[in-house]
């Protein structure tokens, strides 16, 4: 858990500068891959504008800030995609779930919201949510207070909803701020892009990620280092991987690779027997993702860049493997694994998929 904004110095200085010069626009679109802190910054900006202390990114202590964090402040509205209400569910129960998930999201903006198991339909931002924005935008707040609408994952907005946001997005009443966030800027109407100041959130440097994982989430150094390199700039991805049993998966993955290259079928069949049949689909997918990372490391060894290896734990094993199979084509290896992942996600029969993958990996080694 964290109470601060991690990284994004560029964005922080951009927004601070706009605030200092009193040139804050009325609409911002934050875009960038998941887990880069878009919603964290949006929340921080809202707190800073409303909080009496005027602390950068909010003090999180005062009544105002705590009201905001509890989603109880009248000037701050958090809108995120929600699944539809099941017929069997009571209104109060439904609203309670929505509120609970929204609070979770505000408490940890780096973690994606998950409505399972209670609500299962695809979450969207509907036209009704936008209509609610339009109604409250017209209400006057006392004093010179800012009214802030924080709309998260705007790519999940339905087409009618997006279009009905356009007018308000173009010319909202004074002292209104709309902050939209998305990981998929390409899916958003050009007319929305054009009405906002677009800020691109870049992926985080691995050092930033590593220190955040160590300091804020108390993950031990070596693991944090590995995660930060695997995360590809996304804190969310790093966190999602943090709990996975990488050591086990790594052993399984290496055993699979070695069995695939054995001239005898027995080790492979044994492997499939013990792993493909007992392990869940999710475990297998994680194992395959790790296998890809291992193969990437093999390529680095092959090219003579051992210092770039990510899975440092297994360097000797990888080195040994590469010595035996020095003509292994890593690109083909990674491609066939991607395909296998695709098949498995589409519910291919696990032992079959893995067996076929094994043969194709072997081909790549020739």
């Amino acid at each position, binding site marked *: 858990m964290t109470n601060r904004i991690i990284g994004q110095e560029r964005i922080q200085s951009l927004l601070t500068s*706009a605030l200092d010069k009193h040139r804050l626009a009325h609409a911002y679109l934050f875009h960038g891959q998941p887990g880069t802190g878009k919603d964290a910054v949006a929340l921080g900006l809202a707190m800073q504008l409303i909080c009496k202390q005027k602390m950068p990114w909010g003090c999180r202590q005062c009544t105002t800030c705590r009201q905001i964090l509890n989603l109880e402040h009248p000037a701050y509205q958090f809108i995120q995609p929600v699944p539809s209400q099941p017929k069997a569910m009571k209104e109060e129960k439904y609203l309670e779930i929505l509120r609970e998930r929204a609070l979770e999201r505000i408490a940890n903006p780096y973690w994606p919201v998950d409505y399972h198991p209670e609500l299962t339909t695809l979450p969207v931002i509907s036209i009704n949510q936008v209509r609610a924005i339009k109604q409250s935008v017209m209400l006057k707040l006392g004093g010179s207070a800012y009214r802030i609408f924080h709309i998260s994952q705007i790519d999940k907005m339905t087409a009618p909803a997006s279009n009905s*946001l*356009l007018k308000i997005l173009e010319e909202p009443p004074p002292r209104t701020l709309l902050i939209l966030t998305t990981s998929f800027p390409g899916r958003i109407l*050009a007319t929305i892009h*054009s009405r906002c100041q677009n800020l691109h959130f*870049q992926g985080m440097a691995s050092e930033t990620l590593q220190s955040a994982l160590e300091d804020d989430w108390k993950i031990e150094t070596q693991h944090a280092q590995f995660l930060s390199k695997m995360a590809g700039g996304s804190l969310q991805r790093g966190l999602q991987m943090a709990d996975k049993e990488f050591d086990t998966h790594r052993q399984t993955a290496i055993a699979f690779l070695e069995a695939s290259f054995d001239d005898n079928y027995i080790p492979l069949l044994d492997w499939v027997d013990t792993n493909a049949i007992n392990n869940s689909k999710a475990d297998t997918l994680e194992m395959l993702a790790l296998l890809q990372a291992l193969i990437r490391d093999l390529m680095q060894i092959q090219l003579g860049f051992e210092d770039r290896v990510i899975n440092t734990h297994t360097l000797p094993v990888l080195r040994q493997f590469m010595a035996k199979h020095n003509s292994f084509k890593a*690109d083909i290896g*990674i*491609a066939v694994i991607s395909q296998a992942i695709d098949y498995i996600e589409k519910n291919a029969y696990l032992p079959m998929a893995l067996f076929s993958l094994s043969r194709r990996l072997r081909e790549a080694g020739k």
Partner: protein
Amino acid sequence: MTYLVLARKWRPNTWDTVIGQDHVTHTLRNAIIHNRLAHAYLFSGPRGVGKTSAARILAKSLNCENAVNSSPCNECSSCIEISEGRNVDVLEIDGASNRGIEEVRNLRENIKYIPAHGKYRIYIIDEVHMLTMQAFNALLKTLEEPPSHALFIFATTEPHKLPATIISRCQRFDFKRIGLDEIVAHLSKICEAEGVAIDAEALQLIARKADGGLRDSQSILDQLISFSDKHITVEQVILGLGLIDQELFFDLGEAILNKDLAKGLNLVESIVSSGYDIDEFLSGMAEHLRNWLLVRSLKSTDLIDASDDQKKRLGEVADKLEEGDLLRLIQIIIDTRMSLKRVENPRLILEIAVVKMIQMEKTVALQDLLNILGGSAPKVRTREAASAPRAAAPAVSTVAPANTVSPAPKVQSTEQKKNQPITLDSVKARWPEVIRQVKHKKVTVGAFLQEGIINAVDVNGIELAFGDNTGFHIDVIKRAAPLIKDVLLDVFGSSISFRCIRKKGLPTADSIPTSKEEKVQQLEKLENEQPIIQKIIETFDTELVD
């Protein structure tokens, strides 16, 4: 007073301040002056080019109390009320929020009342494409024959979503994307008024990023002004917009040219650590390669959108890669972007792509190969001359050894054939060529001819020996004698006769070796004689199978 963004502050409010839409403003002004107004207008075009603004200006100029030359005064009560959106005669409706049939029914109810103050009762329906089909249909009758005081103005970015029946009842005006130069001119005007200094190249960059939308460009400029101190430089634009430094693309291009893996992988490292979006980097690189391709094929930099410096640098490297290679590189990027969606760790995919691009074997252009293989001597020489200035390029260096091939054997023979005495060796050396030409003219004869071996060469000509059971062969060859003689004349340059004999115990003809060893021997011999064959074997990594 809260801050008003540039796009709103600079929203045009007279016909003259509408940028880049002369075809629309001119027509509308004339219509007002000559009193030839239609009762319904449809404004369509991309985002941020002035549709809603034009609709408001039209509304103002029609109801303005003291309009001069068809342009609104922006001072009278009517104009001010319209600007503030509270004029009772001008209703600006958000089509996306009021899209149902109920809203249209209300509109039809109210349209019959005559305007309160002005001459017209004007309905501006913005985002009109979002109306439901029922709503559109309910509007049709009113739209065809509205009361004389009513005027409709529809604005939309997606006119294709409107039913044809609506479009046919309106006068349609298509707003254009705004040109780069017009955006630059307008932005520099804003900068001047706002007291901000800005580099010319920075303006270019903004205008390019805005992609034809004036409001987009104003939003970007606004963002940059709020970020920088009174003077906006190119670096600030790059930083402020999080653009990918073009330098990275040139670096990757260089790594590909020099086959420098370490450099390529370092580049990946710096892309990842500086937090660039990998997909964006790849699309930028594809764009870079596309520019490269254009410069390569057109030999000019006119068609590409880049700064002068970049154009110059592209021009310098353009010839170092063949078109086919550039296309293959682009293909690698396209494939990579596809697989990017399926993978947990995008960095890994980028690394693979970079390694692939750097290790990609460069091709030799087909035309070059043809020139070397079958072309005449002068052609080969021009190719050599042409390739000399770019000897450093890998694509050409692959060809270089091939270039040393003596001009094709055929050419040599035509020069030498007259004064060369015909001996057993010379005939044997050129026999494959004879067979080839005969086959070319008649396959069967060639096949039979292949069976024979050259037994002797004397003043009477060539003596071909055939093994047992080849009576039929000899018959066919004898029948085709004129054809073969023609070929001999062609190859040796003089008329040579030939005869066939049968020879017992002659198992095979030596022109087609059957045992593997013989084949290898012959192949080696060929390799030594003809560097190009060696080259082909190396390039295609072939080996003798059987």
